[in-house]
Structures are given as C-alpha cells and as structure tokens.
C-alpha cells in the first residue's frame, strides 16, 4: 500500500513542482504589456502589403504561410497514419439500423445549415475571425452528422481522398505559381484589392478555401473510418 501511494505521489510532486516553477517564471514576465517587436511591425505593414483586414489571417497565410503548409501536412500525416493503423474501411456493419426519426430529420435539416456556415467562415477568413481550419471542421461536422443518423450510407472514401489530395495540391500549386511569377515561394499574388471587401487580399481567400476543403474532407474521412473500425480487427 505505501509503495503504491509513493508511485502516485512521485508524478504528482513532479507536476506540482513543474507548475510552481512555471508560475514563478511567468510571474516575472510583463503580462499585458508584451514587447510586440514583430507584432507591431506586422500591424503597420499588413494592410499595405497583404490587404487582409484580419491581421491574424495575414500572419497565418502570408507572413507565416509555410507554417500553415506544415500544419496542413501534419493533419494529412495524421490522417494517413490513422488510415494505416485502422486499415481499409471494413464492410458496412450489416444491420446497422438508421437512427430514430428525430435524429434523421434533424440531420437532414442541419446539413445545409452547417454547409452554409462552414463555407461562410472559410470565405470570410480574411475579413472576420475564422478561416480555413475553423470552417473546415464545420464542413466535416456537416458531413459526419448524416453518417451518425444513418450509418449505412457513409460518404465515399474515394471522393473524399480526391478532394483532400487536390485541395492540398492546390495550396502548394498556388505557392509554386508565385515562383513562376518571379517571386518567392508562397508570396501573395493577384493584388491587394480594396481593404474589407470579399474580393481582397489577393490569393489569400483561395488559399483558405483550399485549406477548408482539405481539412473538411480529411476530418470526415478520419471520423467515418474510426466509426467503421469498431468491432473485430480485419487482420
């Protein structure tokens, strides 16, 4: 008994000690008055150079575009790895009955609503808070809710794989197109447009559209594959 207590006490002390250390370190930092070395410069530069009203989008897609590309790749790698681990989608569980009337009707109502909200958030990512990742998750929810209501009719994995692959390639192709126009990789193209209108900030809305479609397709495929993997292993 005492040794079991000790075994749990050790990690608890470690976590508590780590928290205390972190609290002491953080207490010395200027909360609420950050140095803003790069942040200030970006705020001054973004409207003129990138043309996006949402500075966070300007940072995500323009100043740190390759971070976003890496993020897309990480999600892609996770989906690939999960697909590798879970194996091919098994046969439909025979007799998986559709859910009750309320869930089915609700899913039918929710699907177009979620689709519209997701696309809105994606397309307005450079004007209001939001963007490709957030909207993509909502799109994935739009496609997964009907699967929960009727497990016998999941979306086709081939189509999802095509959307995923082509959207990701579109992101990189937009970046490579900048090379063709004698800029650096992932430089924003197509002019700034008028600040605050839907068609502005050059290629940024297009990039976010690619991101949104890719994330939506990826998460849908991942979630559906997880629900299908339940049961015996198809070794």
């Amino acid at each position, binding site marked *: 008994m005492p040794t079991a207590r000790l075994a*749990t006490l050790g*990690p*608890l002390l*470690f*976590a*508590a000690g*780590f*928290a205390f250390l*972190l*609290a002491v370190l*953080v*207490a010395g*930092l200027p*909360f*609420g*008055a*950050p140095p*803003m070395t*790069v*942040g200030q410069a*970006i*705020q001054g530069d973004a*409207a003129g150079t990138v043309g996006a*009203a*949402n*500075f*966070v989008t*300007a*940072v*995500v897609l323009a100043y*740190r575009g390759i*971070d*976003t590309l*890496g*993020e897309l790749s*990480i*999600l892609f*790698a*996770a*989906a690939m*790895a*999960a697909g590798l*681990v*879970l194996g091919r989608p098994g046969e439909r569980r025979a007799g998986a009955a559709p859910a009750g009337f309320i869930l089915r009707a609700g899913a039918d109502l929710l699907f177009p609503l979620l689709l519209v909200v997701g696309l809105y958030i994606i397309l307005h990512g450079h*004007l*209001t*808070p939001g*963007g490709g*990742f957030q909207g993509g998750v909502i799109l994935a929810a739009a496609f997964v809710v009907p699967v929960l209501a009727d497990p016998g009719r999941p979306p086709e994995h081939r189509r999802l794989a095509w959307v995923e692959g082509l959207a990701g390639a579109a992101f990189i192709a937009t970046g490579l197109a900048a090379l063709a126009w004698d800029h650096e990789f992932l430089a924003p193209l197509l002019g700034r447009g008028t*600040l*605050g209108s839907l068609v502005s900030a050059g290629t940024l809305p297009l990039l976010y559209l690619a991101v949104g479609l890719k*994330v939506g397709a990826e998460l849908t495929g*991942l979630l559906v594959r*997880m629900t299908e*993997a*339940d049961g*015996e*292993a198809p070794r």
Partner: protein
Amino acid sequence: MNDATTLTLYLGAIGLLAIGIGGLVLARHLFRVVMALAIAEAGANLLLVLTGFRWDAVAPILTGADRAPMVDPVPQALVLTAIVIGVGVQALALALAIRLRQAYGTLDLRLIRARMAAEIDGAAGLAPAGSRDRPAGERPLPPPQPAALPGETRP
C-alpha cells in the same frame, strides 16, 4: 482588478498544464491518457495566447474604426497552428487506442506494456526475462498469475 485577472488567467493556463501533465504520467487507462494530453495541450495553447495580450486593446482586425491598440496577432496565429497539430495527434492516438483494444483486449497501459515486452521477447526468440533461481525456502503465497492471459482484463 488587473491583478486578479492576471492571476486567474495564469492560474488557469498553468493549472490546466499541470493537471494534464499529472494525468499523462499517472493515468493507467489509455483513454484517460489521451484526455490528459488534450487538457495539457489546451493549457499550453492558452499560455501561448496570453503572451500576446494587451490591456485595453482590441482584436487585430481592421474595422474602419479608429486605430485603437491591438493585441499581438502572431501568438494567435501560432496557437491556430498548435491546436490543429494537437487535433491531428489526438486523432492518431485514438486510432492507435482502437487497434490496441482489438489486439490486446484491454486498455490498461500496464497490461499493454507487459504484453508488448513479452511479444518483443517472443518475436526475438527469447525466453521472457525473469529470475532463473528458485526462491529460497517455502513459498508462503502462490506464484503470481502471468500477465499474458488473452482476452482478460484485470479489475
């Protein structure tokens, strides 16, 4: 008011991080480990976002209004990336958990570790590690059950 806000925010972030890390090292059940990871990542992301906070500043979006001071947009972009990375890793962890449940019949980490070690030894053709000497004297208790019983979970 400022001090209270500061204290609450930082306690929240560091508290989440500590709870998550504590759960990560302590939890025996696979799913709790994934949950603890999610909590810890939330705490770390909160800590990162707080580095951009400014008192009496607005969101970094141009709305045509007067140029009020804005919070730092860079940490928000960083956290966007970090959250998505966390989601990917958690999804993969759950996929592995599904497969582990199917392969070993249990989600108890200690059992899984023992069976994994036994499998590695078995694949290499080794006898499992253990003392080859008989204990001296009488055994007061019956020998412990081997951990590698298939399809059985310990209470």
